[in-house]
């Protein structure tokens, strides 16, 4: 799979978005620009990824700041309606009416997306179920489907109506490697001619799918650019050593027994070729306990 190159100008522009939950600042002045193609959103747990996606999907309004998507400003009723008419949203933990069949559920979402003509709507539902490879089980109740299948039903619901802006929150979580590859293909296809924002923990997803990447941590944007630029940030800052380097930002024992370290290398260090993950960890710069442990 080759990441789809950006096409045209910014389609989504967010400026200084902020959102606070109680004492927690989930978003703290987030500004970003998205264009057509798939943009990856990376960040540790609690970085604010889901919150940002919920804001951009109009599921929750921000405390401050503003954004426009495909020319719609959701601060007005008509703007929000206009945006929702061209939006597909796959939440992190999609909920379902478990007694519905896969077909009925996607049809229900299609109705909520104002597809009023029954024949055309059913044709569209069949198309998206076919796209996610669920045609064979479309008559099965959702409670009888596996978690991976339900995830694909949710993706079909997001895709129905051919939205111009797709917001996908960790769609590959909980999928086996084969399902993940299938999902990547689907997302890559979805990125052709659309604006797709893909939240993920997997740097491989970003490397394989995305023409742009945004790193979010502590509710702030830590990096925005291409995956190659993120990788390049780690050039000269990744080295191998026999012992754990005490001053490294992150370090871990590799399969061959040496340590891979990220940070400021000592003189004469055995430098390694950086990966996207190295660049990501450096962008976090000690923000996440998970990577520095």
């Amino acid at each position: 799979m080759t990441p789809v190159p950006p096409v045209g100008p910014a389609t989504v522009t967010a400026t200084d978005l902020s959102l606070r939950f109680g004492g927690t600042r989930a978003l703290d002045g987030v500004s970003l620009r998205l264009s057509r193609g798939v943009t990856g959103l990376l960040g540790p747990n609690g970085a604010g990824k889901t919150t940002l996606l919920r804001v951009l999907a109009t599921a929750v309004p921000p405390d401050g700041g503003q954004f426009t998507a495909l020319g719609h400003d959701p601060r007005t009723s008509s703007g929000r309606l206009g945006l929702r008419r061209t939006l597909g949203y796959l939440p992190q933990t999609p909920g379902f009416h478990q007694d519905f069949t896969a077909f009925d559920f996607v049809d229900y979402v299609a109705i909520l997306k104002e597809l009023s003509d029954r024949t055309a709507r059913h044709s569209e539902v069949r198309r998206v179920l076919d796209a996610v490879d669920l045609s064979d089980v479309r008559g099965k109740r959702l409670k009888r489907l596996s978690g991976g299948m339900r995830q694909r039903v949710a993706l079909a619901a997001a895709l129905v109506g051919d939205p111009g802006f797709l917001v996908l929150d960790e769609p590959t979580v909980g999928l086996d490697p084969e399902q993940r590859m299938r999902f990547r293909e689907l997302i890559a296809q979805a990125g052709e001619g659309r604006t797709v924002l893909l939240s993920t923990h997997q740097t491989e997803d970003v490397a394989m799918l995305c023409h742009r990447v945004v790193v979010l941590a502590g509710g702030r944007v830590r990096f925005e650019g291409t995956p190659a630029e993120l990788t390049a940030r780690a050039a000269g800052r990744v080295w191998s050593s026999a012992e754990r380097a005490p001053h490294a930002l992150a370090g871990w024992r590799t399969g061959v027994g040496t340590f891979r370290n990220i940070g400021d290398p000592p003189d004469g260090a055995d430098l390694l070729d950086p990966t996207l993950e190295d660049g990501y960890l450096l962008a976090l710069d000690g923000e996440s306990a998970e990577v520095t442990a």
Partner: protein
Amino acid sequence: MRRLADTDTDTDTVTEAETGGAQVGLLRSLVPAVWRTVPWRAPAAAGALGLLIAGGTRLPDDAPGAGLGLLVLRVTALAGAVGLAFLLDDPARNTSAATPVGRAVRAGLRMAFMVPLAVLWWTAVVLLLPAATRPDLAPVTLQAAGTAVGALTLATAAVRFTDRAEVGRRTVVRLATVAVLMILVPSRWGLLATPDDPWWEATQVRWAVVLGVTLTMCAVWTPEPLERRRLIPTRGAG
């Protein structure tokens, strides 16, 4: 693919009839679709319980007095309100959070489905009471309406101020808390006077106020906000 938005323009090629036709077509699809999503079990169980309670007054050989009838109707109304507390439960809430047919329309349809059913149910409950047991129906019907709308308002608030998909259980807890508080408040100042009390009339005024206020709050809180004032999180920000 034809959607309502495609006809919602000012272009010369789209007539008002086409727009209206699309809206009718959408409504025709929307009504049965939303009907299927209503969590019927809780209201049905609560309704059945209410009918059983009311029907229980026919068991004694001698019909109980109107005082017991008032109590039975209040308990029955509370049972019905418990069922209504689950009306806005929507396990697919987050999956359908960003659709053009918003939460307000879906919640409004659910409430609209429930109104005639609730009226029928209340009529059945009243008819189940022996004639000698029936209190003056206008005041107790006002109280039942206030209790029902109060439950819906609590559920509406839970939907608006949290991101929970299923708010019914929490609403029942809050409804029960309110009911206990109502019992604890002296009847002179509260809402549970009896027809023999000199402040019975004043209590009806209070119930009318409760009904008006809860109806207003329900109407205000049902639409999705464009600006965020307060949201109680139910999971991390990640």
